[in-house]
């Protein structure tokens, strides 16, 4: 039995410890927002947070998440205080980022991990954090501007479920 927290909830998984976290999330936990794209850490569609870091869940065995805090797209909005969307989700809507939308859970989770450590990323930082996420619909310039729009949104509060402490991040 593997124990972990997913989006703030304690979960137990009765699965082979070698099973990739991706399939445990999608099939065992029935949370389909996290997507399968390649299975070999090449596309980023399966990106989730493990203890606040963006990871590729398709190559991460559930055993590696034992006792950890996992955040998926379904829990992204809860990373910020209050009701409503994460500022990145709002920016994604404002900039009309998604086309087919299939890559966007992974894009948002990668972007959220970036902003959590670098609240005002420049182009090079965005390139570095986002190059692992393929968008076959080619919405890169919109993703870039949406990250900047979200970063500019003032006084975004990031909530780290690992410590349950609210930390104020200021943005220029």
């Amino acid at each position: 039995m593997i124990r972990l927290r997913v989006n703030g909830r304690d979960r137990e998984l009765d699965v082979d410890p070698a099973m990739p976290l991706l399939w445990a999330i999608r099939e065992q936990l029935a949370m389909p927002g996290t997507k399968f794209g390649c299975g070999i850490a090449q596309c980023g569609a399966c990106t989730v947070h493990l203890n606040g870091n963006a990871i590729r869940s398709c190559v991460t065995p559930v055993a590696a998440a034992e006792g950890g805090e996992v955040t998926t797209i379904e829990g992204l909005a809860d990373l910020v205080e209050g009701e409503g969307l994460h500022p990145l989700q709002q920016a994604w809507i404002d900039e009309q980022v998604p086309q087919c939308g299939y890559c966007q859970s992974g894009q948002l989770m990668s972007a959220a991990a970036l902003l959590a450590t670098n609240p005002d990323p420049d182009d090079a930082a965005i390139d570095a954090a986002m190059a692992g996420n393929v968008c076959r619909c080619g919405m890169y310039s919109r993703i870039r501007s949406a990250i900047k729009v979200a970063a500019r949104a003032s006084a975004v509060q990031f909530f780290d479920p690992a410590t349950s402490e609210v930390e104020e991040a200021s943005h220029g």
Partner: protein
Amino acid sequence: MGKWTRRAFITTGVLAGGALAVGVAIRPGHRAPKVAHKVTDEGETLVTMWVKIDQNNRVTLIAPHSEMGQGAHTALTQMLADEIDARWEDMAYQEAPALDEYANWALGKGFLLGDADVPDALVPTIDGAFMKITKAMKLQITGGSTSVRATGVYGVRVAGAAARELLIDAASEAWGVPASQLIAQDTHIVDTVDGRRLSFAGLAEAAAGRQPSATPSLKTPGEFRVMGQSKPRLDVPSKVDGTATFGIDAQVPGMKYAAIKAAPVFGARLVSVDSSDVQAMDGVHKVVELDDAVVVVADGYWQASRALDGLQITWSETENDAKSSDDLFAQFDASLAQAMEGGESKTDVEEGDVELAFADAAATVEATYRVPYLAHACMEPMNATARVDGQGCEVWVGTQNPLGFRYEVAAALDMEAEQVEIHQHYMGGGFGRRSDADSAIQAALIARAAGVPVKLIWSREEDVRHDHYRPAVASRFRVALDRDGGIKAWENVYHEKHEPVEAPVIPYAVAARKIHHTDSPTHVPFGPWRSVDHSQHGFFTEAFFDEVAVAAGRDPYEMRMAMLADKPRHQNVLRQAAERGNWGETLPRGVGRGISLQESFGSLVAQVVDVHIDNGKLKVDRVVVAIDPGFAVSPDGLTAQMESGVIYGLTAALYGEVEIEQGAVKQSNFHNYRMVRMNEAPQIDTIIINSGEAWGGAGEPGTPGIAPALVSAVFDATGVRVRELPLAKQDFSDWG
């Protein structure tokens, strides 16, 4: 509206409860009532095939187009909102179910045939355009960039205008005032004299039985309030919180998961499989043998795919087991040489005396261009979920052609189409790939064999290795120049003729032209790939034109403009792209700028591309795209399509190559079938030109022009002429 208003019959019918149904039909007949129960919920009134008004005065567009991110649902909804005069907040979209009554193939078909007025009786028998692509007579396809320009223009707008007029007439009778003093406004009919108002919902029933006008009056562009505005896409909110349900997300009670391995060489068959080690593995339910594939059905996808890897499979031998890409290109070259040297070929265009022009040419330019096979690599791998029992079959899938899938699945199961139900989902990319029913058919066969509902998911490796590919093609050119550097004659021969038929035809004025093609069949399956034949011919013709301009000592932009003297619309698009792209500037060594012009799917697109060589690596800095689509229903949606089309074409031009090795596809996943990523994506500036000409497509026209502009820019930067894609094969290490 031309021919289509006369051919598009507006039909009415009375539904249970005395409500009104209006449809725009290609053939006469009361077809709307037949399908009413499929699209109406309790308490809702069907007002047209494309319109549903519920008790809350919500106007729902029902149209047979699927959403793969191209914004079709939103653009079509805008068209209806404008014609019927409803508030945007009152609008919704519902995709039409996969029923014959909703088939839009007649519209798409007629459109692709150049608005030909096809007699009704002939329509189902024509074997052309879309028919070859889908291999099905029953079509309900989203492709060919037809949503807005065919269904929207000929169906949705007419339906909306007809519905508005019916509602006004109903109010006129109810109030005893002339219709001329009534207007539709904000989902109400308003009396302009005394200001009284009645909602559409309140009038729908009263409109029942009224005869619709055969020629409802459509709005003029000056009257548009919603069309031409960038409305937020209806599907976007669900795509930022993980709630959008794609085919791969379907949940069916009791379902198992399937992983599949198909014969690596196309055309090979399954001979035998040793599954003794696998049957006992934890979670494995069954090993299913198909004609050309082996499948493991298990409790989860991961167990299924792990078990699949452990199988010992024997495939039949085929005559293609030794084939390589080199063999195929050698075959293409031989076919072209034969056609060029007087062998058999089929003519696309023949004008003037080509041989005479070459006989007294001041100079000639000859070249052969080549492109490789390309996979679609939709972000969502192919998948389908199916349940089969004695009564019928249900399939959960994202498809560009729900009705076609219904017929193909039925045929594969030996059932009637009526026994098959397709549950449509969002598509994680389509690009033409999801018009092929292969994975849906497999899912149905597997579910039947396994005796349980099954979700079949292809691995990315299967997706890359068992696509229906943009074909590998070679195209051979020769041009005769006169003393002033003008083109006297243009000859082009190629193979792989699909759609659109005009793809290889250049817009430039050349007195003597011969464009012809031959066959050079291979064992690699073909499928429509974003922009179809334009994806190769856009590169071939425009890249070669650049080469000819250089050979003639002329500026590629100026030469195009001079040869488009009788085409001001083309000139305008090209000029605007050139101006925004600073055409004519002098650039340092290692920096280059290229240009292209492409007409496809009714839209004109010019692109100017800037590149530089950085440490031996080619970098694409900026792309300027000017598009004249006639009219942009949603400017931001069109801009997004240009960005998308450019990146899709750029990925192909830089990296895209599916190679054949020992009869099978060599590439397998994103590490060796590379995609352009964030750090390589250029700035893209889009210019929209609303010329007022016939409305063109948006989803595909951005793709063909990037490759030729790119090789033109590479030549400008380095003097290296690239005639074979992808560019990744070039070595730029000498160039800074």
